[in-house]
């Protein structure tokens, strides 16, 4: 593979990412799926990078799940989003940072629509005014949370306590990067590196010492696809997609998967359990799975945060093998203790998938 070829493409897809003063909007589902991820993001930005990042207590869903699940019409979605912008405007911020890739995609879609159809923007302003009496400015910069981490990947590397390197062998960890579909497949120019060879996660992994795997089904969706998972009859399709990806990446023997989307880590993680229960197959070494992380979690690990503080105990596929490889110290006894030291309980062991 010619890396220079990819770099040439990445050059064509440089996007502007704001430097500071971020208005952060949360993901609906990540707080349940991987509750440590967003916390870690805020911690890195505030404590490590000393940035001004604000989240408004009144902000809501962007309606992306409903919109892609065919239950929320576009006009509703636009109006809700307009309200988010109004909150941002009221708080005096201009740079929007969504935590969720689908939100990022929907914000991009709405802004692109308004750009091409000003009459729609006028209509939405009218709707918002009638509904809430609020006014708003269009954000100056919209960057996904992973864009922000990408921008400061060098700073994080400088402060890093660990690298994405197998301490036993000294070789870089083999990392599969998986980009959420809504990140750049709809608007290639809005994603770092474009749609075909997105660079946003690769940049982090390479900067932090890892090696990225390009496997044939790299571009394939994780299978969440909203309707696909939400309707039980379609779940076979959803898991089929993940299955296809695992089969394709298996020969490369990846050490871990890094993602930038709420749904992808959830499904790439949990489906490994479901597949192992359905047909007995596992994709890691010794009957283990391939650990799946969000980019914030990986950044947190690199910075030396306690794995249990960043929420790795709620992952289905055990993270310990990768912690061991990276040489990260952790206390197994505190794995299932909550923030206040209260015992959370140990989840039931899967019948196939090994710890």
């Amino acid at each position, binding site marked *: *593979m*010619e890396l*220079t*070829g*990819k770099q*040439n*493409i990445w050059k064509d897809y440089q996007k502007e990412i704001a430097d500071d003063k971020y208005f952060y909007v949360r993901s609906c589902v990540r707080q349940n799926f991987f509750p440590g991820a967003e916390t870690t993001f805020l911690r890195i930005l505030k404590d490590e990078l000393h940035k001004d990042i604000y989240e408004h207590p009144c902000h809501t869903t962007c309606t992306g799940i409903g919109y892609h699940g065919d239950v929320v019409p576009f006009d509703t979605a636009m109006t809700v989003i307009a309200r988010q912008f109004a909150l941002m405007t009221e708080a005096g911020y201009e740079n929007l940072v969504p935590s969720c890739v689908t939100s990022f995609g929907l914000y991009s879609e709405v802004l692109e629509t308004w750009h091409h159809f000003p009459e729609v923007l006028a209509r939405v302003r009218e709707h918002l005014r009638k509904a809430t009496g609020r006014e708003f400015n269009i954000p100056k910069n919209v960057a996904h949370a992973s864009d922000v981490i990408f921008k400061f990947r060098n700073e994080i590397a400088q402060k890093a306590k660990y690298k994405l390197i197998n301490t036993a062998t000294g070789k870089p960890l083999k990392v599969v990067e998986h980009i959420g579909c809504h990140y750049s497949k709809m608007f290639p120019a809005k994603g770092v590196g*474009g*749609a*075909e*060879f997105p660079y946003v996660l690769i940049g982090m992994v390479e900067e932090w010492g890892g090696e990225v795997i*390009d*496997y*044939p*089904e*790299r*571009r394939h969706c994780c299978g969440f696809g909203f309707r696909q998972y939400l309707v039980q009859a379609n779940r076979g399709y959803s898991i089929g997609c993940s299955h296809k990806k695992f089969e394709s990446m298996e*020969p*490369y023997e990846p050490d871990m998967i890094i993602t930038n989307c709420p749904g992808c880590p959830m499904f790439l993680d949990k489906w490994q359990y479901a597949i192992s229960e359905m047909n007995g197959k596992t994709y890691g070494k010794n009957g283990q799975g391939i650990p799946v992380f969000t980019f914030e979690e990986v950044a947190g690990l690199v910075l030396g945060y306690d794995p249990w503080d960043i929420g790795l105990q709620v992952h289905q596929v055990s993270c310990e093998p990768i912690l061991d490889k990276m040489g990260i110290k952790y206390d197994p006894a505190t794995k299932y203790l909550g923030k206040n030291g209260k015992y959370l309980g140990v989840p039931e062991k899967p019948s196939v998938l090994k710890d």
Partner: protein
Amino acid sequence: MSKSVIVIGGGIAGMEASAYLSAMGFNVTLFEKDEKLGGHLLNWERLFPTKRLGSEVLTFLKKGMDDKIKVHTNSNITKINSENGKYFVTNDNNEIFEADALLITTGYDLFDARRKEEYGYGIYDNVITSAELETMFLSGKPIVNKQGKVPKRIGFVHCVGSRDRKVGNVYCSKVCCVTAVKQATEIREHLPECETYCFYMDLRMYGAKFEELYNEAQEKYGVTFIRGRLSEANETIDGSLLVKVEDTLVGRPLKMTVDLLVLMVGFEPSKGTKDIAKILNLSTNSNGFIEVADEHTLTNVTNLKGVFVAGTTTSPRTITNTINDARAAAAEIACYLNLYTIQSRNN
């Protein structure tokens, strides 16, 4: 004193038009940006549909170039002025040449396959262009992939950079289909054990003997044709490529691995064509090629009096058609310089 014509671009059209104009008694000056005359023909081993050597045609063209033609190679045009129906052409040596008529034969460039990102040209080792495959044929060396292995399966992707709004080219490049068929059969001749697959949208076998070549490819050479455009190519662990396509005749998606993927790159107006258009203020058509005065009747005439065009400067075409067009342009210029009234029909 006889009248003079400057021909810009020493490819097939430029050479043949120069030969005809000189034979008709005009003073001809030919400019070529490269070291050698012949243009793209220099890079082509065998020609469709006959599979004769490209060098034979080049020899034929060279024979037409008599001593009276003044050839300037390694020469770029920087400025063109016009005064009283005469043209003054300046090259990058700051020499100025005078002519009564100009013929633009700056031709085409091949599409830069990097722009079709999803096919991974320039990224994946074993994605090459049709021109690169031709270079392999021309070199006479064994056909191997980047890993030095003899390919067992080769895929040809038609319409790369053609008929594709996403790369900005809606037109058909006309020669890629038959080139793919030709190259696939040549592969079978070189490597009888190697399977060849053509991924096409439509097979445009419009020329004389093209359909016969296609039939031969199917029956004699066993080339498999799959109607469907590649959505993407991905490298697998052994360096082969997994291609995904909708087999539109079956109505189902299909995936297969190939050891070598050949992109049939289309035609785009060359940099030279675009530069000259800017220098002269020539009109270009929606595809970026030089616009002709009339699509049916004045295919060598431009919006500027005394400036003529020939060959792939106006649209993609085959070598045969380029040679014909060059001769037509020579006749057109002769009419113009001898003040024949034939063109007044369109006034």
